[in-house]
């Protein structure tokens, strides 16, 4: 256990002068119009918590701090550079230490702590998905929305799901940089097809992908909930498994990537810092190589930026470069493309009403778009499922895919894989 300061440190909030420029960047404020659900309002609450003016068991304080998605959309618009993310993380750890997780949160977080629990659970989910039932049952109600999420995790084409298909003749020479794929939990089970597309497109761009055993869940869900001990424990396992494995650690889930890049900060060890420095989103590695162009894919594609890619990792251009390598693909950014979809880790499970209110703003912009996109591309499993379910609930025939899936399909058309 690393030593932690006894008094929670909220100094990152000091520069806030209460200007309110963060309000329109906050998805929950946009959904409710209530300043208690805004970054500025939450900063006031955190400061009150820090000073002891409001107790850590105050129901209203808990409600509004818990309602924060943690999307960090407020940080890039703040002229004073307030470290909102660090502040809310401190608050979450302080509150977690005091009250622990809710029974539902404890159950969900417990599942992700042990792969002998989550792996069978997601395997069952995959079987259920294979029956085609989720697609039929998808709808706007709570159960229907859950089914829609599962349906949205399915590969877009039957071919895309071909497990483990690799390059016939890997272009990777011995000198090619090696890449270890971070498998994760949801990605490794429900999104195996995205892992396959990741491997294929990286090898087509001159990387050699290696497999590393002994990985566990990244711990982002636990960290997000304030359960730092669990996050640290998972992080340590991953650092041990991945250390020295490859030149790069590639992640295709923005949420996992954001935490892996912050392992150094989380664990405070040299090994963790060294590892974190080698973590890249798949789009970054591909963009470094161009990526090489593929075959034509005449599609209207709306790119939707995962919060943990654009705000936490500050990766903006790379996913656009990946999509730009697909000839014929018409890429667009809709007005809501930089706003959180409401997924936010396990937020959509714990606070479904607010998650849906936040999602609805995004779905509206898809519905109003002219021409309507054929495909939404976004690089995070939670976003893929949340947006996919929202589109199904709204009756919009728009597919949701990971950007590398489109590049993969494009390469297939160009017969790059032989």
């Amino acid at each position, binding site marked *: 256990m690393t030593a932690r300061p006894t008094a929670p440190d909220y100094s990152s909030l*000091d*520069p*806030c*002068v*209460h*200007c*309110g*420029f*963060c*309000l*329109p960047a906050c998805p929950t404020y946009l959904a*409710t*119009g*209530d*300043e*208690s659900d*805004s970054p*500025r*309002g*939450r900063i*006031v*609450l955190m400061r*009150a918590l820090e000073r002891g*003016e*409001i107790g850590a068991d*105050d*129901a*209203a*304080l808990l409600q*509004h701090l818990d309602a924060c998605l943690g999307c960090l959309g407020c940080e*890039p*618009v*703040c*002229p*004073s*550079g*307030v470290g909102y993310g660090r502040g809310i993380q401190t608050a979450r750890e302080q509150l977690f230490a005091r009250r622990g997780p809710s029974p539902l949160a404890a159950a969900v977080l417990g599942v992700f702590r042990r792969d002998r629990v989550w792996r069978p659970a997601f395997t069952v989910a995959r079987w259920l998905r294979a029956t085609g039932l989720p697609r039929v049952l998808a709808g706007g109600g709570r159960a229907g929305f859950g089914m829609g999420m599962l349906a949205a995790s399915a590969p877009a084409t039957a071919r895309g799901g071909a497990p483990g298909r690799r390059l016939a003749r890997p272009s990777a020479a011995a000198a090619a940089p090696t890449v270890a794929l971070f498998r994760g939990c949801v990605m490794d089970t429900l999104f195996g097809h995205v892992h396959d597309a990741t491997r294929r497109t990286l090898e087509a761009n001159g990387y050699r992908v290696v497999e590393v055993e002994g990985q566990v869940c990244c711990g982002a869900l636990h960290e997000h909930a304030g359960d730092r001990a669990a996050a640290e424990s998972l992080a340590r396992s991953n650092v041990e498994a991945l250390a020295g494995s490859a030149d790069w650690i590639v992640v295709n889930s923005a949420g996992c990537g954001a935490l892996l890049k912050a392992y150094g900060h989380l664990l405070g060890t040299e090994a963790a810092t060294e590892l974190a420095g080698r973590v890249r989103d798949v789009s970054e590695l591909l963009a470094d190589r161009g990526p090489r162009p593929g075959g034509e894919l005449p599609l209207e594609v709306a790119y939707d930026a995962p919060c943990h890619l654009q705000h936490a990792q500050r990766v903006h251009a790379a996913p656009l470069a990946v999509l730009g390598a697909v000839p014929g693909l018409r890429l667009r950014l809709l007005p809501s493309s930089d706003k959180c979809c409401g997924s936010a880790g396990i937020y959509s499970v714990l606070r479904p009403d607010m998650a849906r209110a936040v999602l609805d703003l995004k779905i509206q912009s898809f519905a109003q778009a002219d021409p309507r996109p054929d495909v939404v591309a976004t690089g995070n499993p939670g976003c893929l499922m949340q947006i996919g379910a929202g589109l199904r609930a709204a009756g919009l025939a728009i597919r949701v895919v990971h950007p590398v899936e489109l590049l993969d399909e494009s390469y297939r058309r160009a017969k790059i894989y032989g």
Partner: protein
Amino acid sequence: MSPALIEELGRIVGPRWVRHRRAELKTYAMDGLPTRESYPGVVVIPASSSEVREVVRLLHLAGAPFVARGAGTGLSGGAVADPETVLIALTRMNRILHVDPVRRRAVVQPGVVNARLSEAVAPLGLHYVPDPSSQAACTVGGNVAENAGGPHCLKYGVTTNHIVQLEVVLPDGSTVELGSPHGEPWGPDLVGLFVGSEGMFGIVTAITVRLEPVPASVRTLLADFPTVRAASEAVSSVIATGIVPAAMEMMDRACVAAVEASIYAAGYPTDAAAVLLVELDGQPDAVEAESETVRAILCERGARSVRSASSAADRARLWQGRKKAFGAMGRIAPDLAVQDAVVPRSALPDIMDRIAEIRDRHGLSISNVFHAGDGNLHPNISFDRGDPDLVHRVHVACHEIMAVCVAAGGSITGEHGVGSDKLDYMPWIFSPETLAAMRAVRRVFDPAERANPGKVVPVHACREWRAARGAQ
């Protein structure tokens, strides 16, 4: 606040849109001016004109005071309420109801964010001109209440010049239409009276605004000066030619340093004593000729360099830096007192010297960012409220700066309003008779003075109050 009233409010807007727990009230205890803090009694967030009407009607019957609030970006403590008062937040009323591109009008709800309106009508080649620096967050309803200004008001006028009709819920719950969509001045100019009334006359629930065509050509110049005085003199010289720039903004070294350290860094030279941002717009030929004239004057007045924005993106960056400057002041110290005063343009160079003298005498950190073209100053005093002695010096310095501006023939506010922050200064520029007249007008709309009580018109300074006190 009485539980019965809270329940009644919940019946109108739905219980989840009534906020009354202490933590929630705390998030509404300040606006953009964190030096004035006061918990409201309850916050109610209505969704429609009819809900506003019902809420105000209920408060009328209950005799309860109320304050209307938009995004809470105001800088005079105008949108905060005391524990006896109901705060009515209009942020959920954020729809653009109608756009008429031919007659160039839009009808919006009060909670529409200023910048969203211009974005929405941009595809039609139109925009809503008043552009307060907080436009990314502030609401049109709040702009109406404060008669908000902004950089481009130098050429195009302030909010009141762009509002043609208002739907207003009066403090007794009745609804009236002021003005007309045509904008013709039929009868008394009640729109003009209402705009800038800072919430004293009622709550606006629908606003018909003028839209203007986006100028055919725009040129933005960035000039930097070795002294604040030289920059101030350059401003007067430009205006003296008869050219009216769309905007003319000044930032001093301290302000530039804060902006350049932020994500809105615009490439302002950090070693300059002052930078001027001058924008010219109109037909291409005229803009070209005027910008050459302005460039020559700026150089003549000692500008070290004058550069023109190279692209639309560069121009946007230059403006973002200016508009986010106030928000960037948190980089200097955790607390900020934003001042707002107007002085005759010709007095600018001397006033800037006087402000520097006041700053040095009190050992304060002051950064200046302001609308130089119309003499609207914003000295920003950075401080830490944890230091009581410093807080006192800030308070004294604010008074002194205001006194200097008034003595130079200026005014106590240019665009931020009086609210509660400037209440004490009102008697400096208005006689007891004038203040009594203001109060009488207020009472026409609101006989019991329940709408934004205690703000704008200082009761203790008006004639009746003095007479009553004198009789004691």
